[in-house]
């Protein structure tokens, strides 16, 4: 039996810390993009999701997602309250403590619902958000995580490749965002008032910390400090860079000026797209994946605006579309030399179909479940604040706190 490896454990624990940081970073990325009267609300929403899911994951979420498999579709309740999840190695890695794997995965479970808050920013009721988060994490995130990554999960068995969460994290949340805005009313003044970012430095701060944390997200998913981790690290950085360059160039060519918000958004788009591919593709492919991410996500956001959908912070455009592109790109650019499986461009057509199937299933499941959850919440606690509260801003009306007193 291999022993716990200090190097691998150090790497996975550091990676978990890095991914933890991503959720508050997202709070700044989102918080900078809204109007100043809603900055506290966005930052608190993401921050408190760290609180909520950290606890629910320990209590039941981890068991549902990674616990002993039931019929390929869900984990059992054997590990509820982390019973049996100890300081020795577990079924997911021989060289790191089971708890290290658990907490690394906790960070993914945390950030996924946090991504969604960008969709209904500036109008959701805080209480509703909390309930939504618990329900969505339990009934959408845990199942999908089990399908793709759980021992015995059917999508994983089927051969779908998702190194670090293109389907599990990004498509699931991006599509939930799309579902949410179809159910929920728009912001007052949407389409008429300029709702420009109130703090561009915060946006870039958030994007930079996301980039930093994403090394843990992707390279940590190797679960070992090895060559595969190094490869994932390299392609992550490369795709992020290319995404930033591409989106910024698009704003330059189509909008007249190179935009900082565009560069930041493009970096995130590139990071999203490389996520499923990070353990399967090389650096030159990463350049193309980042290029595609910057272009497709930018165009998706424009389309969204054309369709007059109020996805406040373009969660669908970035995570839904970026995740989908990444999952497909994995089927295109994967090479057996890196991750053991070839994609279309290396002669293996079937992988692309597998990827498309996994994408389709994730879209359908997340979309349907999100609609159901939100409809129930609409009939019970209500979804959005009232007009007076929205005009004053959520910071004062929901939290009694002004963002800044300068």
């Amino acid at each position: 039996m291999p022993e716990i490896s200090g190097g691998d454990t150090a790497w996975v624990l550091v990676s978990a810390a890095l991914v933890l940081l991503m959720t508050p970073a997202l709070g700044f990325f989102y918080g900078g993009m809204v109007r100043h009267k809603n900055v506290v609300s966005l930052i608190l929403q993401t921050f408190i999701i760290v609180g909520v899911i950290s606890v629910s994951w320990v209590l039941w979420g981890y068991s549902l997602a990674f616990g002993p498999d039931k019929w390929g579709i869900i984990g059992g309740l054997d590990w509820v309250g982390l019973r049996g999840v100890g300081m020795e190695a577990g079924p997911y890695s021989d060289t790191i403590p089971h708890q290290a794997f658990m907490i690394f995965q906790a960070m993914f479970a945390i950030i996924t619902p946090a991504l969604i808050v960008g969709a209904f920013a500036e109008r959701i009721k805080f209480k509703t958000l909390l309930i939504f988060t618990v329900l969505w994490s339990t009934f959408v995130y845990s199942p999908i995580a089990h399908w793709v990554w759980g021992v015995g999960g059917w999508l994983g068995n089927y051969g779908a490749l998702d190194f670090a969460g293109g389907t599990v994290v990004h498509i699931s949340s991006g599509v939930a965002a799309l579902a949410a805005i179809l159910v929920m009313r728009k912001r007052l003044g949407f389409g008429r008032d300029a709702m420009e970012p109130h703090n561009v430095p915060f946006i870039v701060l958030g994007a930079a910390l996301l980039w930093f944390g994403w090394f843990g997200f992707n390279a940590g998913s190797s679960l070992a400090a090895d060559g595969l981790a190094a490869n994932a690290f390299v392609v992550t950085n490369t795709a992020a860079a290319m995404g930033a360059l591409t989106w910024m160039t698009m704003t330059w060519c189509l909008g007249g000026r190179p935009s900082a918000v565009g560069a930041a958004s493009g970096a995130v788009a590139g990071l999203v797209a490389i996520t499923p591919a990070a353990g399967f593709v090389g650096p030159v492919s990463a350049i193309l994946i980042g290029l595609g991410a910057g272009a497709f996500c930018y165009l998706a956001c424009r389309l969204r605006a054309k369709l007059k959908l109020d996805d406040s912070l373009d969660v669908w455009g970035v995570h839904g579309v970026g995740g989908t592109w990444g999952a497909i790109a994995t089927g295109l650019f994967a090479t057996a030399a890196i991750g053991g499986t070839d994609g279309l461009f290396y002669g293996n057509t079937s992988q692309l179909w597998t990827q498309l199937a996994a994408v389709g299933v994730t879209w359908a499941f997340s979309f349907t479940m999100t609609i159901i959850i939100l409809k129930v919440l609409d009939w019970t606690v209500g979804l959005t604040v009232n007009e007076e509260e929205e005009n004053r801003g959520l910071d004062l009306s929901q939290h009694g706190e002004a963002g800044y007193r300068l």
Partner: protein
Amino acid sequence: MNKIEAIIRPERVDKVKDALAAGGFAGLNVVNVVGRGTQKGVVYQGRAGEKYTVDMLPKTKLELVVADADTDKAVDIIIAAARTDNIGDGKIFISPVTQVVRVRTGDRGDGAL
């Protein structure tokens, strides 16, 4: 005495301020405002390429109180320094001030200016 309120382009504040000082008008206040005029607003592209008309644009308001006799001179200085001949150059409003007091001394009247 008169109060002159000049609403001008932010990028011209330094020039106007210096010109006023050169003309002997040291005292003034500056405050940032957003304003709308007869200009129709600037068409602006949002993050996702959507078009907005932003009608409220950032302007700077200068306030200075001057003796009646100096009013025209001050206004002319401001116009000369603030004018770019483009829409959005701003407006100047003049209104009467009946009394001025210097806090430090309690002095009143023109001499307190």
